[in-house]
Structures are given as C-alpha cells and as structure tokens.
C-alpha cells in the first residue's frame, strides 16, 4: 500500500470514529423498521428495547466531546522576557516546515510537548502551545533540547503526504479520547487517591493541582459505551500503527537533521534517565520535609534537581549506557526507545557532535528566577504556606525528625493489638523478654508462605523484617530524645549519625543489639543499654498507658 493510500484509509477510519454512534443508531432504527412487519405485540417490545439501547448511544455521542485542552499549570514565557528561547523555537519550526507555537509555557514535568487545540475533531488546525518542563531542560544540553523540540514538531508534519497532518492530528485526538475514558472509568485511580490521602501533599507537590471529583465515569452505560469507543479507537490506532511507527522514526530523522545525530541519540537515551532521576529527586529530596511542613528554600524545590544531576553524574552515566527494555504494546505508536536509538545511531556521522554542548537552561534569561517563579504556579497553596528551610540539611533534619516522630509500623499495630495498650518500645522489649515475640509476630501482615510456616521456619521468615523495623524504631526513639543527627548528601542516601563517637562503631553496636534482641534466645540488655532511660522504665514500669 502506498503511503497516500494508507493515509486515506486512516482518514476513513478516523471518520468512522465520529460516525460510530450514528451507525449504531442506524442499526437500531433498521431493526425497529423491520419489526413493523412482525406481530404487533413483538413490535412494541422491540421498540421499547431499542429505545433503552439508544440512550447510551446518544450519551456516547456527547461523550466524544472532550473537555477543552487545559493548559497545564505553569509559567507563560513571553517573547519579551525570553527572546533567545523564542528565536530558537521559531527558527526550528521554520526549518521543520511547520507553524511555530502561539504560546510557550514552562511546566514542572520531565517532558516537552507541542499541543494543539483541535477544531472539528482534529480535522482543522488550531491554536498551538509549547509546553516545556523545567526538569527536562535542567538535564538536557541545548542541542538535545533542539532535538526534542524538532521531534515534537515532526508529529505535526505527519509523514510525507499532504493528508499526513490531518491523520496525525486525528490520531492525537483519538488517543486523548481513549485516555479520557480510561481516566474516568478507572476506579482504581480514585481508590488509590483515597488510600494516599495522607500522601496527597506529595502528589500535589509533584506538579498536580488537586482534581475535582468527577463521577460521570461511574455509570454502567457510560462504561459500556466507553468500551465500544475504546475498542474502535484502539482498532484505529492499530490499523494506523505501522504509519505511526514509521512517523516516529521519521520524526527522529528530522530531529537528527535539525539538531544533529549525536544530540538526538543522546537525548533519547537521556529522557528515561531524567524521568526516573526526577521521580527519585522528588521522593528523596524535594518533598522530604513535607511531613514537617517544611519546604526547601525559595527556588530550590525545582532548582535542587540540577544539583542532584551534577552530583550523581557517574551514576547517571551508567543508567544512560543501558537502554530501557520496554514491553511492546500493540497500541503504542512509539517503537521501543532502544530501537529508536539504534536507528538514529545508525545514521551517518554529520560532524555535529560538538554542537550546543551548553545546558538548555542557557537559553533562558534567568533560570534561577524561573525555578522560583514556577513554585507558586504549580505547587498547591498549602505547600506554599509551609516554613522555608534555611538549607537542604535543614530540610533533611526536619523531615526525618517528623517522620520518625510519627512512626507507625506494622509492628506498632501488632503490638497495640497484642497488649491492648499504646505501642511503645519498652512494651515491645518486655514482650521479647517474656519470650512472646513470635506469638506477637503472628499479628504482622504476613505473606502466604510465612503464615503457613511453623516454628523455626516462621521465625526465619519474619526475622528480617522485624530487624528492619526494630532498628528504625530504636532510631526513632533516639530521634525523639534529640540524640540523632543526619548527614545530607547529593551523591548518596542520607546517613543517620548515631550518638556515641565513631559513627561506624555506633551503627555496628546498634545492629548487634537488634540481632541479639531478636535471636532465638533473646537478649534485650544491649538494646536497653543503647536507649536513654525512659519514664516507663524509671517509673513503676507497668503503667504503660500513662506514657
């Protein structure tokens, strides 16, 4: 099939997506019409049934109207404020042979995308906006950034035919529709949100403003129709998939032409690395103090990512070297990234290896000010009201103290159930001394194998997790007494500094004490020696609830 024929087929199928409801209604009408010739009692029944069936179809027609593309939260970048960025964006669009965007918005995603407000279901071109994620720009060189941008433009060119742009737009539209259905019908999302209510501060912090609860996805008819459309949509995507993948390669080639081969290949390698590094950064650094209602210093919430990338350059280099192995989905228009990298790297050397080595942030007038401006634009109000830490070690110290303060492990819950009183470390040590630890352990959440195990095997199943929890518990106890310090580092995990001189020896002493307390013949004396005397021990020793 020639590429034009393929595009025409895609276009017909695309129209079918819009016409699907009409066809369904037509079928129902035809049945009604045929039923006229049946006995009258049958006719009325068929009509009744067809009305019932028609309702979801009609609803479905309305469902196809997507909500307007919302501009993601971010900072609009005007041409006056960022002349160099705009000049590059325009120059690249001209070179790619497509329209330059009408607006540029700085976002907090590890992503760059060109979006177009569709008209007539994607049949006509609309207003374009370019979304640039600050974390992405933080990690890319200028040339890599050009390559990413050129690739995005490539999607709006849509191959070699004149129909290409329409098909490309249509496919984007259908993908959005399916994603929209999934989002609504997927109850899991809602459940997860409920479970993670406590963590919502973090969720919000990751650049997602709280969504309003939308219940339209709950109805059965809605889901049934969503299924029909999703089925048709995936069918369409599959039918046009070979084109789509070819386009993806074409977009990569055009990116290589516009931004250089080496920059394109390295950008493809870089993006998955940046994406996981950014997740890690958010989890382990940026949101570390949220439990203590503490934010990093002004501008550092997004600005710190650059520090992390610089400090962990060596680790990142290893991650870049190995290409991610992806499960290939039949509906994904993107070929596996490994294949794309290999295709780009197979292109002849264009001698542009040294183009645009500087950071992509160099295109901006004042990157630090932008990082600070992004905070109020994308973070939840609540976070903005938090205390600002003095520096990163302050963030770490506050966060860890808060986390350890409200320690609630499965062992805490098991102990509370077992003793029917507050779960305290002295109470746990008492249970251990009385030789009832393993009965207590039966109340922990256990795997199927562990709960089936008896005697020694059971103890061996449970011991490793007990060791971890008990160690944390002791550290938490020390933290509450203000006996701990933390060492901040961009290159490695934060380390706890235990009291008592040599940190290594103190750590070993703690491990040994924990091991002794959980041994087959338990001895809690070393652990008690490490802990500061608590009221429960100095007092009568039995009145645990008053502690």
């Amino acid at each position: 099939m020639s590429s034009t024929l393929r595009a025409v087929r895609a276009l017909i199928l695309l129209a079918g997506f819009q016409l699907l409801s009409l066809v369904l209604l037509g079928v129902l009408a035809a049945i009604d019409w045929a039923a006229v010739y049946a006995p009258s009692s049958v006719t009325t029944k068929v009509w009744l049934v067809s009305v019932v069936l028609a309702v979801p179809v009609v609803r479905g027609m309305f469902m196809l109207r997507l909500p307007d593309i919302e501009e993601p939260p971010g900072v609009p970048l005007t041409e006056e404020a960022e002349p160099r960025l705009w000049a590059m964006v325009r120059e690249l669009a001209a070179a790619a042979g497509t329209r330059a965007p009408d607006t540029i918005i700085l976002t907090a995603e590890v992503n760059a995308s060109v979006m177009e407000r569709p008209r007539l279901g994607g049949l006509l071109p609309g207003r374009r906006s370019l979304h640039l994620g600050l974390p992405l720009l933080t990690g890319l060189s200028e040339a890599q950034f050009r390559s990413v941008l050129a690739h995005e433009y490539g999607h709006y060119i849509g191959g070699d035919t004149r129909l290409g742009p329409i098909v490309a737009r249509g496919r984007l539209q259908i993908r959005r529709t399916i994603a929209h259905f999934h989002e609504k019908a997927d109850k899991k999302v809602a459940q997860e949100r409920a479970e993670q209510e406590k963590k919502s501060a973090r969720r919000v912090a990751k650049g997602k403003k709280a969504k309003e609860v939308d219940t339209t996805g709950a109805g059965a008819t809605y889901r049934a129709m969503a299924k029909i459309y999703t089925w048709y949509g995936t069918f369409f995507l599959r039918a046009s998939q070979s084109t789509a993948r070819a386009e993806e390669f074409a977009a990569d080639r055009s990116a290589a032409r516009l931004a250089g081969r080496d920059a394109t290949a390295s950008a493809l390698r870089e993006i998955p690395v940046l994406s996981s590094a950014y997740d890690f950064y958010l989890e382990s650094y940026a949101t570390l103090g949220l439990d203590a209602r503490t934010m990093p210093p002004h501008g550092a919430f997004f600005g710190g990512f650059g520090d992390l990338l610089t400090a962990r350059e060596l680790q990142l280099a290893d991650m870049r070297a190995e290409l991610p192995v992806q499960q290939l989905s039949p509906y994904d228009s993107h070929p596996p990234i490994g294949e794309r990298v290999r295709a780009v790297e197979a292109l002849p050397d264009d001698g542009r290896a040294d183009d645009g080595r500087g950071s992509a942030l160099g295109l901006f007038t004042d990157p630090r000010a932008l990082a600070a401006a992004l905070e109020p634009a994308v973070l939840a109000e609540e976070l903005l009201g938090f205390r600002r830490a003095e520096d990163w070690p302050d963030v770490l110290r506050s966060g860890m103290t808060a986390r350890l303060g409200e320690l609630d492990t499965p062992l805490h819950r098991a102990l509370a159930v077992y003793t029917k009183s507050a779960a305290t470390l002295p109470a746990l040590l008492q249970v251990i001394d009385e030789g009832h630890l393993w009965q207590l352990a039966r109340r922990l959440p256990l795997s199927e194998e562990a709960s089936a195990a008896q005697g020694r095997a059971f103890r061996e199943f449970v011991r490793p997790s007990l060791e971890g929890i008990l160690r944390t518990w002791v550290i938490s106890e020390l933290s509450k007494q203000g006996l701990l310090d933390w060492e901040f580092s961009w290159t490695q995990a934060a380390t706890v500094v235990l009291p008592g001189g040599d940190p290594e020896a103190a750590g070993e002493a703690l491990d040994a004490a924990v091991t002794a307390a959980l041994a087959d013949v338990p001895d809690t004396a070393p652990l008690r020696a490490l802990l500061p005397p608590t009221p429960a021990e100095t007092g009568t020793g039995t009145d645990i609830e008053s502690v």
Partner: protein
Amino acid sequence: MTVLLWILGILALPVVAFGLYLGFVFVKTFIKHDPDAPDENAGAEAAAKLGLLPAGRLDLDRPGAADPAAEAVLQAVRRGDWEAGARFLAEAGRDWEERGRRVSILGHEAAKEDAWLLAWRAARPGDADAALVNAESMIYLAWEIRGSMQAKNTTREQFDGFHRVLAQAREACAEAQALGGDDPNPYVVEMPLAMGLGYSHKDFNDLWDQAVERAPHHLGAHQSALQYWCAKWRGSHELALSFAREAAAKGAPGQLLTLVLLEAHFEFEFAHKDLDEDEYYKRPELMKAVDAALLDLAAAAAEAGDPKARRLLPMRHMLAYMLYWQDRYEAAMEQFKLIDGHIGTAPWTYLAGKPRFAERYTAIRDFTAVRVLEAAEAHTATA
C-alpha cells in the same frame, strides 16, 4: 405473554440439557459399563491376591515402617528432654551410616522446633553431636523456607530466607566439622549446601575428600555427591554417570554402592522426558547394573539377616521400578512384596506430586501382579 413464555422456554433449553447431561454422568458412574473397567479391577484384584495393600492404605511419607525407637525419642525431645536425643545419637557409636540416619531424624525435628536443641547446646557447649544436629537442621530449615516449588513459583521472600539460612548453615557445618574428629557425617551434611549455594567443583571435591577419607564406602555420602554431580544441580549427565560407575565399581557386595549407579541412570531417564522407558531400561548397561545391584542386595540382606532391614529399602524401591521396565516381573514382585505399604521415597516420589504418585506406584505394581499371576497360571497349565 405467550411471547415471553416462548423466550423463557428457549432460554431454559440449555439449562435443561445441561441438567440431563449431569444426570447421565451421575448414573454412568454408578452403573460403570466401561469396557476397560474389568482390567482395572483385575490389577487391584491380582495385587490383593498376592497380599499387597490397596492404594488407600499406602504410607506416602516414609520409605519403610516407622522406627518405634526414633518415634519415642522424638516424643521425648518435644517434651523438652533433649538428653533422650543426645543418647539416641550417641548410641549409634561409630556406625557412620546409622549415625547419619539418626542425625537426619533429629535434624528434621529440630528444623521444626528447636527449643530442645538450644537447651542441649546451652547445657553442653562444644558438643560435637549437638553441633552436627544443628548443622543438619539448618539445612532442612533452609529447604523448608524455600518450599518444594520450581523457582518460578518461589517468592523473593522464600529465596532470600533460603539463602540467608544456607549461609548460616555453612557456619554451622564448619563448627560441626571442627568438633567432629573422624566422623564423616559433618561433611556429608554439608553436601546439600554445595548444591544450594553452588560450590565450585574444586570446593566440592575438597569436601568430598574429607568425607571419603573418613568413610570410603559411606552410602549416604555417595548418594548426596551424586545429586551434586547431576545436571539438575551443579554437574552434568556425563559427570554424574562417571561418578556413579566409579562408586559402583569400588563397592564390595553388601555395601550397596551399586544403588548409586541405578540412581544415576534413573536421574538420566527422569531428565529426558522423551526417553522410552521400555527401551531405555532394557539397554545392556542397565541390565548389567541391575544384575550387579541384585547381587549386592543379596549380600547385604544376608548380612542384615532381615529382608526388610531399613538400609536395604531404598535399593528395593529402585530395583522394583527398574525390574518392572525390564519386564522381569517375578523379580520385581519379590521387591514389591517387601516394600509395599510405605512408598515415600525415590523413584515413586519423582513420578508425580503427592499424593498422585501413589497412583503411578499402584499402576506399576498391579500390572506386575497381573503378569505374575498369568505366568503362574500358564505354568500350572503346562505342568
């Protein structure tokens, strides 16, 4: 209304049809007009005629009758009387194979609950016997944690626990070896560790040298080593067979080392699903190996004075299986008569999961019984 009834009626048809089918199957099982049925019954009848037990009464856990002395000791240690366990092991004296068997019994118990073993070790620090039982129990414990499923059905948690306990077991073995003197058992006990932790061939040979230096003809040591050399663990089919041939050749009649060769051939057959047992076991080398094993067994039985002696049973189980495939039904039946009742051992346990391997066992045994009776009838007819 009538239309509705019609619709309901049509919908009801498949339900009625399914109900009828169920009824038919139910009745059929009661009447049992299977043409094959008489044959099945004939097998069971023949077995019964020869005094063999029905499938439901087979013990699937042990290779032979329970050892009352051992049972009593286990009862005692469960009550906390560790000294009963200590005496039981000490009484084996320098009979290394018997000592190995007793260590295994105590080790199994200590892998389940070890309060008595901890008490023993606390009361007699540096006791070689307690250290040996401890090492053995850690190895059983590791496998208990791992479970008997294939790797893909074993969880991360199980593997982690398995490897953690195996590492501890290695230390326990070293302790037992340091205390063990000229007892080969601390080295034999370590052999499963070599499989689980993947010792290099060199390290395994060092271990092996220590064991055979102390007891050149220890059957348990040879059986464990064979497992290590098997392709499924750390060796290959060729290494396993050559090891087993050597072992069989060096054993004197009555030492039962010919069993090692039979086991190697059996492992080979078991690892090759496409082999036709009917052909494989009739190969000249296999016929020769079985003949040699029969002589070895006869010598051992004469020495033991009891045809059902415990140490003969593994050999009898293996021979029953192989003689059956060699169509030597009379000889096979001799073994079946001595092992029947307790089949919790190789080769039967390999054939299918528990308890299904009992079916395979009875099928093989009953087929043998029918052939034996036929032959007897033919004999009386000609006489």
